[in-house]
């Protein structure tokens, strides 16, 4: 390790400082260093809650006079593809089938033969078990509560697919329906009683567990079967700091764009349970070199579901505890009614509490403070919003239909909520920065899309441009006189910057850096200011 550090030092010391390097923009993370020796770590749910509520950890932007911009991004402002995130729907349009399949469709549990229960959780609020199908694949099986059939399984199914379309790593989850006689109890399976004492599990335990979960009209059980993630599980990741035993984890999580942007995604799908305990790191070993991949899981508490009951009306509106709102409620005896408490939720048991009228993406919060979410800046929000807005109504509808709700109202309401919330996100975050993207040089001109206009939310233009000559060694710029059209000027050296502004958006600027390589200029950098 010491040798590696010295090598890095020598390498950096010999490189000249410059704004762009020949290989910019970089698409992928560096080839990962082997990290197969990382040990599994555990995290206390309650400790995490109290720690984040009392004294939120991490390098928070609010402690800096000038906020820290997102890291782990290339010169175009895109996160590097790899262990955390990969480019998907926004960057290369996925088909409806691909969107519906999500992380996979080839490993559904085999319905041939019986499922062997090898571990179970019969106590607590979320009964479930681990089973092995006839092919030997492992699955975590989770159910709906008696009061809300299809709610948690539907939410999990949909959110997995939406997060997948947005580029995050998620497990392969399948909606399954099975009868009790599919199950056979494996050898030496134990369960914990109410006092936490382990004892051998019996067929009666299994039957009693199934009494606590919802059943279809045909007598079968609907459940989520989550394929065990390949590789060695090493516990959850946190939304701050780095994992010190992972040599590839060198960007503080609270400064990662993909995790900052997840705040916007979480708001969209109502993932107020977005915290470390619902993440999972696994050491995967392609080509024998183990490295960590980071997953988001346990999405049953989204889209109005609280897994075992409809989510609280407070969900997304307020933290579980915060000083100011609590003091306000205490002092006013509850007469100061928060906006979220006035939300109207239709009585649809398979949806829970999900709505769009009171939804305010800028004010949405998870259950307790999340350092990465707190650090998000307008360009992080824009990055997430542009991906969400890329999902069209028919694509959202196709995904929602795949959850196979027996109540047609559930499907219609979820589609309406997701579409309306998506548009609110567009209206909120396309206003904070100039909503321009997909820059390219076409026929000698700088071309781009106004994402707000494209989404039908109104254009921010007309846009003006001023070309600047860029000294790549010093990053200093000089205006190129008379270069105020989108045509790339011939003058000004190899690097130029198009500074785009709008008279309707004071202080909002996008700097697009262009490099002329041989005869064809290409876009190598995007910087947004607000």
């Amino acid at each position, binding site marked *: 390790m010491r040798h590696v550090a010295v090598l890095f030092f020598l390498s950096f010391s010999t490189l000249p400082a410059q704004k762009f390097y020949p290989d910019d923009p970089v698409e992928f993370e560096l080839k990962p260093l082997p990290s197969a020796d990382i040990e599994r770590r555990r995290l206390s749910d309650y400790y995490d809650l109290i720690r984040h509520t009392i004294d939120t950890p991490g390098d928070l932007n609010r402690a800096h006079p000038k906020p820290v911009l997102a890291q782990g991004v290339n010169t175009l402002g895109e996160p590097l593809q790899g262990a955390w995130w990969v480019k998907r729907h926004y960057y290369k349009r996925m088909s409806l089938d691909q969107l519906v399949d999500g992380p996979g469709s080839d490993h559904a549990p085999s319905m041939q033969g019986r499922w062997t229960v090898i571990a179970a959780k019969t106590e607590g609020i979320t009964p479930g078990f681990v089973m092995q199908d006839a092919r030997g694949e492992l699955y975590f099986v989770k159910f709906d509560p008696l009061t809300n059939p299809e709610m948690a399984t539907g939410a999990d199914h949909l959110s997995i697919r939406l997060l997948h379309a947005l580029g995050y790593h998620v497990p392969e989850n399948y909606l399954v329906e099975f009868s009790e006689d599919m199950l056979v109890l494996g050898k030496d399976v134990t369960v914990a009683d109410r006092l936490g004492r382990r004892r051998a599990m019996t067929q009666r335990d299994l039957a009693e567990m199934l009494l606590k979960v919802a059943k279809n009209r045909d007598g079968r059980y609907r459940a989520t079967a989550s394929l065990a993630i390949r590789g060695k599980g090493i516990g959850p990741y946190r939304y701050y700091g780095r994992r010190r035993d992972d040599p590839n984890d060198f960007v503080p999580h609270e400064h990662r764009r993909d995790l900052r942007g997840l705040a916007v995604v979480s708001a969209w799908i109502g993932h107020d349970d977005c915290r470390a305990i619902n993440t999972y790191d696994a050491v995967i070993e392609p080509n024998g070199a183990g490295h960590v991949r980071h997953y988001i899981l346990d999405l049953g508490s989204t889209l109005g579901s609280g897994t075992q009951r409809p989510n*609280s009306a*407070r969900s997304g509106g307020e933290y579980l505890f*915060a000083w100011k709102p*609590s003091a306000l409620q205490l002092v006013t005896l*509850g007469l100061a009614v928060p906006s979220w408490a006035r939300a109207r939720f239709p009585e649809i048991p398979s949806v829970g509490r999900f709505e769009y009228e009171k939804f305010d993406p800028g004010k949405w919060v998870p259950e307790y403070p999340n350092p990465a979410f707190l650090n998000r800046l307008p360009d992080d929000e824009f990055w997430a919003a542009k991906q969400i807005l890329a999902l069209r109504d028919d694509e959202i509808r196709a995904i929602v239909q795949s959850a196979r709700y027996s109540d047609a109202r559930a499907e219609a309401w979820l589609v309406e909520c997701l579409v309306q919330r998506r548009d609110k996100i567009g209206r909120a975050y396309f206003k904070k920065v100039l909503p321009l993207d997909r820059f390219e040089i076409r026929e000698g001109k700088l071309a781009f899309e106004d994402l707000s206009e494209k989404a039908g939310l109104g254009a921010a233009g007309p846009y003006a441009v001023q070309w600047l000559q860029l000294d790549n060694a010093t990053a200093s710029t000089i205006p190129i006189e008379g270069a105020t059209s989108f045509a790339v000027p011939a003058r000004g050296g190899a690097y130029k910057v198009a500074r785009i502004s709008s008279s309707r958006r004071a202080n909002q600027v996008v700097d697009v850096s262009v490099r002329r390589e041989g005869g064809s200029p290409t876009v190598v950098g995007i910087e947004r200011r607000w």
Partner: protein
Amino acid sequence: MLAVNVGPGRDSRFVSAEAVFTPAQAPGIDRQTDFFRYGAFGQFDWRDDPFGPRHGGSYVIQYTRFEDPRLGLHDFNRIDVDLQQYIGFFNRTRVIALRAHTRLTDTREGQMVPFYLQPVVGGSDDLRGFRPFRFSGNNSLVLNGEYRWAIFSGLDGALFMDGGKVFSRRGELNFRNLEGSAGFGLRFNARNRTFMRLDVGFSHEGFEVWFKFNDIFQQRPLGTADSQPIW
């Protein structure tokens, strides 16, 4: 079978009750007996969550027959009526909780309700501005009203008013001559269940502070083999 144990007190710091009260004042204080008890109840319950209700209602009527086979002095009937109504609003973040509870006893001539089975009023679960067992008689009526609001996810505030009385004849079952108390409290919740509460009740006799590990209107399970009836 209800086994009771009544006898002289053993703590020398206090005067034993039978030295202060006569059997006429406190029936059953001088002789110990056991009871054979049976009864029936009916309940209609549409509360949204019986362990932390924020909407709906629970209406219970229970008849209990107490027979004193040993002494033959304390046979009586008891009727309990407990009506609870919860009106949740603003997505059930605010709740008006109402309860009316009456206990009526009935004896034949020559029979008496023993003092330890007489309805009592006063204390943490009914008239919170009075000390425990402040009022006792053959019949009782208690009315409670609470306004509860969410302060944060694990804590509700409460403002309450209580009214109640004991009375000797069932014809006095009305809203006249009620003792009153009012106060405020805090309800600590986990998973929508109150596990601890702090109530401060005020009355013309002073104030009382209650620190309890139950819900104010909590009922014991009905009709189960391993538990007593609700009262």
